[in-house]
């Protein structure tokens, strides 16, 4: 495996940043934000992976096994980040729905009453 997951994670983040910066459609911006989030989640999961590690669901583990246990913090972080990502995506999409209703378009070039 090596660094492969980290490379993929960074690619996802860069793709997401590209989408967020250069796309004009509000829905595509939301997709971009989700892509970055996926990349970060992959990064965290890859960080928590240990070769030949075991899940820490023993109660009082014998020392031989305790060495191979993986502290599940990165997984917990990922899970929390997924939950937060869900909330932000839903909120962004609902703003996009209302913007479309109001302006009749999803193009950011036409949604710009706020300037200067």
């Amino acid at each position: 495996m090596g660094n492969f997951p980290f490379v993929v994670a960074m690619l996802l983040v860069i793709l997401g940043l590209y989408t967020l910066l250069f796309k004009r459609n509000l829905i595509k911006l939301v997709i971009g934000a989700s892509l970055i989030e996926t990349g970060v989640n992959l990064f965290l999961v890859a960080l928590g992976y240990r070769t030949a590690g075991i899940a820490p669901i023993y109660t009082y583990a014998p020392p031989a096994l305790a060495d191979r246990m993986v502290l599940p913090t990165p997984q917990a972080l990922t899970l929390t980040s997924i939950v937060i990502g869900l909330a932000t995506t839903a909120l962004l999409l609902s703003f996009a729905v209302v913007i479309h209703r109001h302006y009749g378009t999803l193009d950011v070039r036409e949604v710009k009453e706020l300037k200067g």
Partner: protein
Amino acid sequence: MNALSVHAPVLLVATPLLAAFVVPLVAKLGSTVRNAVVGVFTLLTASLAGLVAANVLAGSGAPSVYVFGANPLNLTLPSGMHVPIRILFEVDGMSAFMILITALVAVAATLYSFSYFKEHSGGEMYYPLLFLLLAAIFGMEETGDLFNFFVFLEIAGIAACGLIGFRPWRGRSQEAAFKTMALYTLSGLFVLIALGLLYGQHGGLNIAYLSSRVGAGMLDLVALGLLVVALGTKAGVAPMHMWALDAYGEAPAPISAVLVASSQASLYGLFRVLFTLFGAAVSVAALGWFLIALSVLTLFVGVTMALLQKDIKRLIAYGAVSQIGYMLLGVGVGFTTSGSRPAYGFVAMQGGIFHMVNDAACIGLLFLAAGAVHRASGTRDLNRMGGLGHDMKWTAALFAIGALALAGVPPFNGFSSKLLIYESSFAASPILAAIAILSSILLLAVFMKVFQAAFLGPRLLENVREASRGMLVSMLMLAVVVVVFGLFPGFFVDKLVTPAAKALWLGRDAYVRAVLGG
């Protein structure tokens, strides 16, 4: 009573959270009951904030630790572990100071909301979101765990954007909310990448633990950079300040005031990262100059763009951005002179930190007054209002107090903190002091123009009525803070600001010891 004060730090977050879930249930019983419940919970939260701050300041700002689910509750390292694994709150002088600011703004904003939202209702979810935002801000200010900080940061962001876009019939507010949320999401993810980098290297996310481990390695510096960019963005520092204008400008007036407190909580996070987390690891002088450069840019952008605005709330939003520049300037000067001239550095820190409370009070006052003006005249365009002072004498007077304080005119609080910044930044470089003073003068000019355009001159609008009593009382509350802090700055600097500045400036060792022992 003792148990209450022991558990006060967690109750301070749990109470608004409880309110956020209770209020929608009692909202069925009518708006009077709902407002009563909201009022009780706000007062409860504010008194808990006072209790937490009083406890910490009684110990002259030494950090106290509250570990979730532990027995006893200050057990940070259970059964021989050398990494703190439980989530914990760590409250020191700086946290206490920030908590007081948030509580002040919260009380004023809630009281104001009661009358502001009387007519256009649909406010079933307004108070729950407001309480959620407050709980998250208090959490950010209290937590001793970076990941916990990230979670509260995101909750604050989501609740804040829900409130910015609270009036869906206004397309512009939706636009502002979308932009703000996109930027908040991006900066939140930057924070998360930084957390991943720190965790991968050091195996923990507790601030005190990390502070004892981080070095000046490549990945640590990348993490520091990401944190600075993300938290700076959320605080509204200059190159990334655009969201702040839209958000402050388009949010309902009381929310603009709370958003100022929320941005300051991000700024607090930035200071915590720079001073406590990386305090021993990186060269402070270089970072200090970086902060000073950002602050000068922020001041410049905020003040010059404010000159061009026609929309009263957007103009105040530029004023709010410029004030972030003063805070950064004070702390940045503190950073650079910490090695060479610590006496001046400490004064600069005091000035920067004292300016946070002054900014929250006077910008909050201005936003509330602008909301009252908007409410009475039905417009926010300065060209279309005029002569409002004939009908809104109180609002005019309160707006004037806020504007003079913002511009740093002597009897008000803005002057007392800016004076500390001027004299100490003069020691770092006279040019900085000149820039700071010039910005203040320009701000004074801008707000003279606004005051003249909105309140003086012949009556342009008919049927304008004075703001309702609740709105006036909440503005008066902030105005009293503005005046009292301006008249007796020495007392408040001694009692509130010095413990806060010391906790940041010299408190890193105590902060680490409180968790790791030894």
